């Protein structure tokens, strides 16, 4: 799938995502936000960072750009839209995904490796995944997912914070997210947002255990 990685001013993870996509054999390129032509791509990734500084609510300024109008066109055409960390915040702020990402319960930025349980297999990233528990890092200050409709949240959830064995409980919830939700997709499954960074779990050298679970997700874009 020809994939665009969007760089907004303040985006910090575009090169990391691009390198990880190449590692996963995805046909990808970095596109500056004003230069984005949606017709050229089948998928788009909004990487992490601090778009426009995030001095307002995270993701809110990027959400109102021309660029996001084009991303919305892609989403409604059934193309794949993925938001990672700040990208997830932008998708929520622009209404492409439901819910909100609130400040972490402890009110600070938190950077750590977490285990995630895969609970939905109908998205391009999780389809055909053998593993049900994967490991990758999070790094955010506003990642507490909230949605007032719990049943819906359950339906949309793709990844949940868990322990090594897949147990989902408050102890392993790093930010206070509803139902330990780390990632959701829309009902159709073509728009996916996640707080964890798969690109940071895509290289053996920098993975503490040597596992590259991030690549397992990105591989879905290589078809």
């Amino acid at each position, binding site marked *: 799938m020809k994939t665009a990685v969007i760089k907004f001013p*303040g985006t*910090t993870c575009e090169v990391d995502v691009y390198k990880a996509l190449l590692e996963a054999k995805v046909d990808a390129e970095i596109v500056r936000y004003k230069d984005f032509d949606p017709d050229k791509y089948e998928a788009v990734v909004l990487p992490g960072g*601090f778009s426009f500084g*995030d001095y307002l609510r995270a993701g809110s300024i990027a959400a109102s750009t021309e660029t996001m109008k084009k991303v919305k066109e892609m989403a409604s055409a059934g193309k794949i839209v993925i938001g990672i960390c700040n990208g997830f915040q932008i998708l929520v702020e622009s209404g492409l995904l439901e819910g909100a990402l609130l400040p972490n319960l402890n009110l600070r930025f*938190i950077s750590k490796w977490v285990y995630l349980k895969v609970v939905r297999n109908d998205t391009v990233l999780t389809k055909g995944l053998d593993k049900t528990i994967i490991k990758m890092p999070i790094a955010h200050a506003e990642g507490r997912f909230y949605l007032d409709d719990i049943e819906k949240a359950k339906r949309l959830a793709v990844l949940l914070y868990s322990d090594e064995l897949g147990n989902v409980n408050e102890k392993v919830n790093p930010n206070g997210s509803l139902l330990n939700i780390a990632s959701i997709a829309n009902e159709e499954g073509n728009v996916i947002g996640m707080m964890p960074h798969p690109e*940071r779990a895509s*290289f053996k*050298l*920098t993975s503490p255990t040597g596992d590259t679970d991030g690549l397992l997700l990105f591989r879905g874009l290589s078809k």
Partner: protein
Amino acid sequence: MKITLSSYEMEVVRNKLGREPNEAEWMTIDALWSEHCSYKSSKTFLKSLPSEGENVVMGIEDWQDAGAIDVGDGWAIVLKVESHNHPSAIDPFNGAATGVGGIIRDIISKGARPIALLDMIRVGNLSLSRNRWLLKNIISGIGFYGNSIGVPVIGGELEFDDTYNDNPLVDVAAVGVVKKDKIVPSVIKEPGLKIVLVGLTGLDGLGGASFASRKLSGEDEIGAVQIADPFAGKIVLDVTLEVADKVEAIKDLGGGGLVVGITEMANGFGAVVDLDKVPLRVKDLTPEEILISETQERMIFAVKEEKVEEVCKAFEYYEYPCAVIGEFVKEPFIKFYYNGKEFVNLPSELLLSPPRFVWNVKKKVKSYGSKPEVGLEESVKAIVSNLISKEWAYSQFDYEVGTSTVLKPGEADAGLIALPNGKLLAIKGDANPDLCNEDAYECGKAIVAEAYRNLASVGAIGIGLVDHLQFGDPRKPEVYNDFIEAIRGIAEASKFFSIPIVGGKVSFYNENKNGIPIKPTPLVVMAGLVKDKYLRNKVDETYVTLIGFTRDEMRGSLFTKIFGSYGEVPKTRLNEDYLSSQLVIEAINDQSIIFAKDINRGGLIASLFSILVKGMGVEINLSRIPSDSEDWIAKLFSENSGRFIVLTSEPETLSKKAKGIHVSVIGRVTNNQNILKIDDKEINLEKQISNYYNYLYEVIS
């Protein structure tokens, strides 16, 4: 505005100039002649630091923003250390954040991409609420800036001591990577270039260089602190690297603002600048304010006329202000115009050559007592209660961004990061204020040796270092004596290890509100390359092996800090550090060890504690510790250099390879969780281990 020039200096100016400067000119001279910008009290001695080596691509030259070291395959690293001590004492969040921003811009000034940050933080006693407030905001300020611009913080130091109660030390180091043939200078080589300024100038940081060059007055000096705007910083970072090969010189506007940046960049040539062309954040700034404002996120470029449009276009894509404000000229005068009128006209030579000072020195008289009467269990517990996990701090930093961080913060004694050429770079900052307070010369050697061992513990050999010399008022003879002694020690050790010093910084006037200087706190940051294999520490039930010889030299140790000073000052036998480090690196490469940690603060017990906190037990036999003394206190708590603890299942392999250094199996790792067994005495450290993990979270909340 305060002027810090002495009456003697003002007389020198009048004599050289043959007239009375106007107010704007006094401010210009004050900024350029400030200790912060001119190094007038330190330069005579700084010049003795060994700065040359085969691998040095760019060493300490006047006015260059950072040094560069060859790392092979056409690549170089750029290394820099800076502090933001005085601003952080007043506004810890912005002070620390702008410290990060400033050092990042020093790195990009060389055309290098910043790939890692280290922060070394020292604040006062956490029982005081003001110090907790300082710590909390310093850490969140560093996170705010570093995270926003996407440069990982991969390691650092965090220390508490009463000496920093009014004057915290916030040191930040940065590493960048650049192709050797693409390094951009900070000074011009020819006149006739346009001066291009990017970024808006505001009212913050007025007279910051001068502010940093005197002690904190206790008055409201918030106007001298700069405000951090990391979003602008990120644009400056991205676009500066984009245009780096289209410009002749790059300089970050830091201490002293526009007037210092332009004078330093002119490097003896002249400049004509029209202040009306400076893009302003707020209207109606006076020309004097524009001159010395230290608003962050501004850079100046020396650009050939035909390239100006291309350079500014790149910034304008992100709606970032870019303006031509003047020109570098042959005539060696720095001239500023406002409203068409000349209001500063000073010779470059005058501005760049302030009188140098060599102050009087006097040796400190120290008194110390005799060996205290303490029990084994009591002293072990007291020592390890001082050892705490820094997770609370580093978990606020985005240490994974860049996907190059091989060893994570807290994982080892040095940070480890992958370079674009595939090599692995280890980096570590070290200081030892308690030892420096006893003997600054031995301490200067000791901190270089410690950094060398820290790098060895992950498999790396030092290739270059930068130093940061933090002291009180240099006019005080005891302070100046420590300063000179510390330089002598650092210079000797770096010569011994053949590790060039490629940059440095001096910060004087660090005192508490009663005028008591801080403990001398020179700090070194060393970078090194992994030889072949690196070590990711693991613990397992195997032999605990001590490499090196333990000496009864207790002064300046954590033990004497807690129980009272006595004994001799530890002497750094540099060759022992060299030999033990070589042995450890060799063992890492033949994969005969699974864990390595050097011995430093807290002595042997502290190194063993790092095994206990991983959920294991340790038992050791005192008689197995090679030492010049039978005293258990020295064996357990001496901090003398040249030593490591390693875990290995084949200690005889190590012994066979050892040259001129002791190797002794002193015990085993056990599965007896929380239990440290010394000879027949079992000590349960469960409470101390829990304190290790929870202390910072609890004290800050």
